[in-house]
């Protein structure tokens, strides 16, 4: 196995692990707390950004698994490069959207009159933070994979 193939497989395996972890942690995040007769129920499906994050990470982990299990022919490698770029963009935009909404949830927005909710459901907030960290790692790994694919064409493959 050449060095290029080994590094690619390693990066994709790590990205698969991170994306799978992000999906699972985000999907299992829910909490209900009662404060002064009011019940606050927090689920990830209440916010479209978190739903998008979960779907994007699920797609990325499924794609990584499929590519890891299939063999690589010449034309297949070109298709994998195209799909890698699309998945990298998807992961990057999903983590950014989830981070933006989570920031509003944690700090609120005084100009729009939006109050932070992390005070009422702290365990939900911690859970979501864990999912966001895993998603961030997956996005970075896919970008590194793409950069490595481009950079490695500078070097001749030793036979």
């Amino acid at each position, binding site marked *: 196995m050449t060095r290029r193939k080994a590094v690619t497989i390693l990066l994709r395996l790590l990205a698969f692990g991170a994306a799978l972890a992000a999906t699972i942690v985000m999907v299992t995040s829910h909490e209900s707390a009662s404060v002064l007769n009011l019940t606050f129920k927090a689920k990830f499906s209440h916010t479209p950004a978190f739903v998008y994050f979960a779907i994007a990470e699920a797609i990325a982990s499924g794609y990584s698994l499929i590519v890891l299990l299939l063999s690589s022919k010449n034309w297949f490698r070109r298709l994998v490069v*195209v799909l890698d*770029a699309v998945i*990298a963009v998807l992961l990057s935009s999903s983590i950014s*959207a989830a981070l933006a909404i989570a920031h509003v949830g944690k700090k609120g927005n005084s100009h729009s009159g939006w*109050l932070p909710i992390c005070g009422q459901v702290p365990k939900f907030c911690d859970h979501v933070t864990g999912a966001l960290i895993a998603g961030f790692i997956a996005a970075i790994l896919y970008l590194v994979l*793409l950069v490595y694919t*481009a950079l490695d*064409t*500078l070097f001749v493959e030793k036979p």
Partner: protein
Amino acid sequence: MAFENRGKPAVEKPIKDWRHVVRMVSFLATASATLVMAFSKETKTLVVANIGGVPIKATISAKFQHTPAFVFFVIANGMASLHNLLMIMAEVFRDKMFNNRGVHLVMIAILDMMTVALASAGGGAALFMAMLGKNGNSHARWSKICDKFDSYCDRSGGALIASFVGLVLLLLITVHSIIKLLNHPKPINNIDITLP
């Protein structure tokens, strides 16, 4: 014609390549997204209370600086349009700047990828923040703001659309560059060193 030029031409003219046109359109899209979002401001005066016949007015404004997601959107699109401009200039002055075309192509491809990641992150964050402002969130008790500031919402929506158009075009260029590199690699250590 007596002489037919088959295959790739020997000298590639700078502006006649389709990728330069696409990059120019992408630059215009990201630059317009930056400018439209940066200059979208709306102020409204509401009558808050009426004390003894004298109405008390309160001025509320909507600016892009109020939301960190929109600030990131402006910064990311600004950097993307700057990158597009620099790459256009690099391709026009290519012969004067680079000796080894292999490194030049890889560098442009990698920089393009970084910019695509940045622009997609900015676009995604601003899109969901705008969706939150348009629909509100009943579970978190966040009320929508687009019914009060509709022209601000329209302008940021237009900026978002322009940003996504620029992003898709840039992604097209990036993918084409990487595939071209995979098909015709120009390695820098292709000197065959055979040890005795």
